[in-house]
């Protein structure tokens, strides 16, 4: 039973690491500021979730696990706010996001 939890935890940690790696790769490969932000959101979305859940399985049912949940919730609430501040600052200082498309459906 314990080893099954260990295996699952290592799978999650490895998958999280893979997402962080792909996020870094994307930040290098993608061409401009805004597209690179999409790669970064891979790192602080899936990367964070998988790695922290992996560590939670290692911690077991303890106060440490509850602290980890609190960290996860905190990160998931604040990281999009930080991304918004970054993207909005870029937009306001005139980094062109490409041509706009308005309205509801395909036009």
């Amino acid at each position, binding site marked *: 039973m314990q080893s099954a939890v260990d295996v699952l935890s290592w799978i999650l940690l490895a998958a999280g690491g893979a997402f962080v790696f*792909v996020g870094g790769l994307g930040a290098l490969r993608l061409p401009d500021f*805004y*597209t690179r932000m*999409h790669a970064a959101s891979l790192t602080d*979305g899936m990367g964070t979730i998988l790695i922290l859940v992996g560590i939670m399985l290692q911690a077991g049912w303890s106060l440490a696990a509850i602290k980890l949940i609190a960290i996860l919730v905190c990160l998931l609430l604040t990281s999009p706010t930080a991304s918004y501040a970054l993207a*909005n600052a870029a*937009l306001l200082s005139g980094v062109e996001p*490409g041509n*706009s498309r308005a309205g509801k459906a395909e036009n």
Partner: protein
Amino acid sequence: MLSGMKGYWYRFAALLLLLIAAWLLWSGIYTPLLLGLGALSCVLCLYLAHRIGFFVELFSARAILRLPRYWAWLLLEVVKSSLDVARIILNRKLPISPTVIEFDAAPDEPVGQVVLGNSITLSPGTVTLDVHNGRLRVHCLTREVADALLSGEFNRRAAELMKD
């Protein structure tokens, strides 16, 4: 939903109790120095919360009860779009078609619009650039993602979460 001064103090007391409980539970060390630091950070947090209008902006208590369901759906969206974006990055041809879209936010309260904008940013492939007068501007990595977002599932879910 609570409003006015009564609501203000109700929220103030609730946040104070929550902060004190969190500090005492997680610190575990009850010396005068650490308790003093705890009291100080609780007061600082309350002041900051007051400054950002946490006690004034309205959201229904029922929205908090609906949150787990919303988070479960959002988690699924994050997983799906993460895999999509990872596939695009690992593709040798890098098949991106960056698109900026604009649409009206369905939730009409500021809190709901923040939830919508942040949920969109959290799922890879879409970043909220601007929220202004209830209108969102979103940068999408591909045209397909943009079309999916314009179909309004995010908007509908966020509005459903925030409704009274």
